[in-house]
Every structure is written in C-alpha cells, then in structure tokens.
C-alpha cells in the first residue's frame, strides 16, 4: 500500500499531490502539481503550489442512497472545511433526493493501492479457483447444495 499522495504510473507524467482513490467517480486528485519523476510508491507530502496556496482542499463525497445500502462514492468537490464540504455535497450531489446520508473525506486522507503493483498485489487469488463454489463439479445435480 502506498500513501494517498503517490504519483502516476510511470513517473514521467506531471502528477498531482494528494492524488487518491483511483476509482473515483469524478474526483481523485489533489490540486497542486508536484515535480514530475517521483517514483511510484514514494510518499509525497501534499503541498499546494505557491500560486494556488489559497485553493480550497479537495474532498471526496460518498452518498448513501437509502437505508440498508452502503455509502457509494459520488464524486468530489472543493470546500474550505468539513462543514462546508458537507453542505456543498448536499447541494451538488443530492439535489433530487439521491441520498439519506453523506460522508465527506479529505481526498488527501485516502490511501490507495499502488496501480503499478497491480499484478503483484492482486495476483494471489489466481490459481485458487477452489475458493469459488463453481470449482466443485462432482456434486452437480445434488439438490440444495
């Protein structure tokens, strides 16, 4: 696992500080470009570039659409603080009764798996078909099994 502020995949593309959840619906990156060339996996402390020092931080928004369901990532927004982030999230993501509960999370607080490590990190289930019910075929036809 790497910090939420890891870089892009090859390190040659300008990336952003505080870049986060790779599967963000709309959001996922911070506001300030960092030096290109940082290697993936190396933690970068999110710092706003001087010109953007006053930029409001980025928040990721999660909406629970109804009781009994999980909060699901809806998108992101900028807000000066958590209170305003919740209010803005209400205005931006629940204008049509889309939710009964909201979470806002500072984008920089999200820890994401390293996209470079895709193979290594997720390979363990491969070759382990026996974890799935469909692996067991001899019992086919047996009822209620």
């Amino acid at each position, binding site marked *: 696992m790497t910090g939420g502020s*890891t870089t*892009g*995949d*090859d*390190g*040659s*593309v*300008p*990336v*952003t500080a505080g*870049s986060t959840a*790779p*599967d*963000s*619906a*709309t*959001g*996922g*990156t911070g*506001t*300030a*470009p960092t030096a290109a060339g940082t290697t993936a996996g190396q933690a970068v402390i999110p710092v706003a*570039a001087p*010109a*953007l020092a*006053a*930029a*409001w931080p*980025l928040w990721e928004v*999660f909406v*629970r659409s109804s009781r009994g369901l*999980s*909060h699901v990532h809806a*998108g*992101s*927004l*900028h807000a*000066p*603080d*958590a*209170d*305003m*982030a*919740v209010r803005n999230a209400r*205005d*931006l993501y629940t*204008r*049509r009764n889309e939710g009964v*509960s909201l*979470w*806002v*999370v*500072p984008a920089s*607080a999200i820890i*994401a798996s390293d*996209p470079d490590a895709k193979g290594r990190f997720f390979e363990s289930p491969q070759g382990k078909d026996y974890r799935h019910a469909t692996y067991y075929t001899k019992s086919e036809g047996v009822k209620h099994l």
Partner: protein
Amino acid sequence: MSGETMSGQEHFDALIAADARVEPRDWMPEGYRKTLVRQISQHAHSEIIGMQPEANWITRAPSLKRKAILMAKVQDEAGHGLYLYSAAETLGTPRDQMTADLIAGKARYSSIFNYPTLTWADMGAIGWLVDGAAICNQVPLCRASYGPYGRAMVRICKEESFHQRQGFEILLELANGTAAQRDMAQDAINRWYAPSLMMFGPPDEDSPNSRQSMAWNIKRFSNDELRSRFVGMIVEQVKVLGLTLPDTDIRYNEETERWEHGPLDWKEFSEVLAGRGPCNSQRLARRREAHEDGAWVREAAAAYAARQAGSVGAGAVSNETGAA
C-alpha cells in the same frame, strides 16, 4: 523508465482495444490526456457560462412556478460544471488554473452561449434545442473511455432530460397561446435552430481531431452523424408544437440513411468561437466580475477554516464513521 513507459502504452492500448475504461492513475499518452483536459474543461466552462443566458430571465419568468423551475435548471448547470471540473482535475490540471484560463479569455466554451436571450420564448428554445443537442452529444459520452468523464456524463444526462422537457413545455404553451405568444415561440426557434445545429462542431471533413478522439473511444460518433440524428428528432417534435423549423432543405436521405439539412454559416461559427459573437465580451466580463466579487468570500472561508482547524477534528462532521 522507457521499459515501463512501453508497458504503460501497451496496457493503455489493450484497455482501448477491449473498450475498457482508463482510470486516473493509469498511464496514458500525453495526447490523450491533453485532449481530455481540453474537452472536459471546455465542457465545464460551457456549463458555467451557460448559466448566464438563462439566469437573465429568472427575475422576469412569467410565474412563480416558472421561476422556481428556471432556478433549478440554472443550479443544475452549475452542478454540471462542477462535476466536469472534478473530472478534469483527475488528469492533473488544478481547478484554479481552469478558472484562470476561462476568465482570462484563453479557454473556449460552446459558442451557443454567446447568443442573446431576447424573449421568454428563448428559455423554451434553449431547453428544447440547445439542451436537446447537448443530450444527443452527451449520451454517447457516457461511454467515453476515460472513467471519470463517463461517470460525470451519466449524472449530467440524467438531469438534462428535465431541461429539455421543461423547454419543450414552455414552447408548447406559447404555441397554444395568443398569436403574439405563438409568434414569439416561432421567432425563438428561428434564431436558435442554426446555432444549435452548429453545437455539434464543424463538418466531419473539417474536424481533424475527431478521428483521433474516436480511435481513443472518447467520441463514439462523428459530428455530422450526431447532427443528422438530432435533425431527425426535432423535425418530428416541431410538428407537435405546430411550429416550423427555419430550414426548407430538411430531408431524409435513404441512401446514406441520414437526415440532411440546409447549409449552415460556418463563418459565423468561427467568428463567434473566436470571440466576436454578439455576447462574448459580456459573458466573460460577467464571469470575471462574479469571480472577483467572490474573492473575499473564498478568502474569509479559508481563513475561518484555518482558525477552526485546531479545534475541529476530521471526524467531527461524519456522524457515521466506521465500516461502510
């Protein structure tokens, strides 16, 4: 690093070939990133500037109901702009940069919003034709290869259909009203018809970037294809209004299986795009003014947040922490 870049390119090519989605932290070609930043930010700017021609009529809407509807619609446009700015930000371009480019007049936005809204019927024509054209354009973008863009478009498309229907309803009521109201509706259609067809962009032969965008699965259909589809829809819908489109050349071509329309003034299109349309300077001045007038609010909010930061913990707002 070059080995990794190669594998990045290969991985990207495989995703595109499989019609899969590219996500923010995937490696992507610089051209792909640039194209997306340009397209998504222009789209966001269009939504934000697009608030102006309609906000123009909020105070003069003919009833409280129409006023409430129009405010909801303008609020949606703001929301659409924000979804799109968020999507563009995932590509590494800070929002402040996009805002700065817009108010400096360096960024483009849809030329349609540089036309004036002269009468109440324009609210109807914009909803029906402008939002209608936008929907035609945007529905295929829900399947754009860049994940955050596609997801933003899904959200936007859900909301746009309300926009189009409320516009059509405005025109329908005017069309069934007094002779003056009917004329007003027809006049609005006459003025918005050609600009809305031009929203799809230049003809295919003059749209060199389209081919690459289609190869990258950002664009799914060509400009002319979408325009033809739109003409086919409105040529039927206008009959329900009992009004006409200001184009006598509309016909269905059996051979190409496309709807054809009369010539469009592409010179006007490029003039407006280049900043010489009827309302360009007014729209930009208004946007700049709003941004500058709001500066003290942004600063105050940031100062308040900084002062509170010591006493308010991150967990204080979320009343439902723990396992999602």
